[in-house]
Structure formats: C-alpha cells, structure tokens
C-alpha cells in the first residue's frame, strides 16, 4: 500500500540523511513522485540544512580567536 503524507513526514529526516532501507527509499520516492506538498517539504529542509552548514551563516565574531588565545595565555 502506498505511503501516506503523514508516514512520509516521519521519515523525511532519515531520508535526507540517507539512513533508510532501500525498500523504504523506493516507497518514499514513489510518494514524492506525485505529491508536490511532500516534495516541497523535502526540498526546503534539504536546502536549509545546506545553508546553515555553510560557515558564513554562523561565524565567529572578529578577533574571537585572538581573545581566546590571550585568555588562555593569561591562565597558563
């Protein structure tokens, strides 16, 4: 029996992380082939993961490393 949207949502993370069985992957992709709502969710989640993993999104404040080094040096 084909997967429902609710069942697909439960597996979206595992699907993106490539940690589903080949059988489950096939079922998921069968559903995604015709369900634009679930496809939009998968695409958006995947895109957000790519963007937040980029070093530019969360970056260190200017001078952070120098100040940390100085604090360690003071402690030693």
């Amino acid at each position: 029996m084909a997967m429902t949207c609710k069942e697909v949502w439960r597996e979206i993370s595992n699907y993106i992380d490539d940690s589903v069985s080949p059988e489950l992957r096939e079922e998921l992709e069968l559903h995604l082939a015709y369900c634009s709502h679930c496809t939009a969710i998968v695409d958006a989640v995947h895109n957000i993961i790519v963007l937040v993993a980029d070093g530019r999104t969360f970056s260190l404040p200017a001078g952070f490393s120098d100040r940390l080094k100085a604090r360690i040096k003071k402690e030693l």
Partner: protein
Amino acid sequence: MGAGDGPRSDADFQSRSSSLPGIARTDKATTEDAELIRRIRAGERELYYELVAPHERKIYIMAFSIVRNEAEAEDCVQDAVLKALRHLDQFRGESKFGSWLVRITINEAKMRLRKLRPQLFESLDDTDNDEGDEYVPQTLGDWREIPSETLERTEVREILVRAVESLGEIYREVFVLRDVEGQDVATTAQILGISEVAMKTRLLRARLQLRDIVAPLLKNGAILSRQPFKRGRNPWL
C-alpha cells in the same frame, strides 16, 4: 572549585559504534588530539590553544545558540575552555576531546542562562517537553533551491540564525550539533546524553519547524517578508 563542580569525565560519553562516512578523518583528528593532550599533560601547556582551535567555532555556535548573545557566548566559551584545561587530567580519551569540550560548553552556557534569565529558563524547561505530539508541516508550496551565494546577504544569514534561535531548547541543541556543526548521529546523542532514537525524533521536529519558519521568508532566493519573528514564547527576539 570542588571536585564535584568540574566537568564529567569523558567516560560518561563512551563511544557507540558508527558506520557513517568520514570516520577515518575523525580517527586521525582524535589521534592528533591524543598526542597534544599527552604533551600538554607532560608540561607543554602552551600547546593548549592548538588543541582547542579546531573546536572553537563549534563551541562558540553551541554557546551562542543557548545564551543568544555574542558577548555572553564568547565569555562562556572562554570559561569552558579554561575549565577543560583545569580538568584535562579527567579526560581519558574514551570519547573525542571535541565532544567533551562541547559538553562542558553546553553546561557552562546553561548555567549562565539560569543565572541571567532564570524565569526564561524555567519556562523553556516546561514548554520543551512536547515531543509526544506529532508535528504537522504547513502547506507552503514549492521551494526552489536557494544558491549558497545568497548567504552573502546579511539579512539572509540573520533570518537563518534567528530561526534557529527561535526553536525550543531541546530541538535547537540537536539541530545545532547535527546540522550546523555536522556532528554524526552517535556523537550528537552522546553529547546530549539521549538515545539515538530520541535524537532523531527531536531532529525531525527541529528541521520541520525550521522549514515552516524559514520557507515563507526565503523563497526563490528572494526575501518575501521582512517581518520580524513573532514575540511571545521567545521574548529575547
């Protein structure tokens, strides 16, 4: 500081097996960390920054995601790093040094948050425990790939950072470790002291919530709305 105040030994984060790719590189880094630790313990304490440097970005992000203030996060990282130095003899190499340092930083950040905003911390404790309800993603239509060049725009980075900040604590810490810092499943679960199943459940919720927050704001590489995130549950925004 009494013995009971120090960070837990890394024996609390015993490694679990992992079949994820990239493990060879991790092993190399772990070996290098072990050698640096040996030399620091033997008296070459000036090498300590070299040991910490590869982990400074991830511990800063973790601290920032908890205290949500750059200056406070930086102070927190400095204190955590010094705490780890003072307790380096308790690190027995049974987990990765980076994981141990992240754990110390999380504890330090939470302690600071409790002191800074005790009421907020209590309210987060109460409202975060909603894992039982299944999350239903909103219907938001198509999403085309947003090129990474978009990140050159400050407002796009701010939308992403503030969206992550707006997640409930248990979801935010899982998301930051796994998706921002790129920790593997086993390490993320170890650091947080939760099962891999619980970690995955929280990660799914975090990712779906983020998508619902971010997707209406970023679509097709353009910012569709400049409206700030809603106040209420997250009054720091």
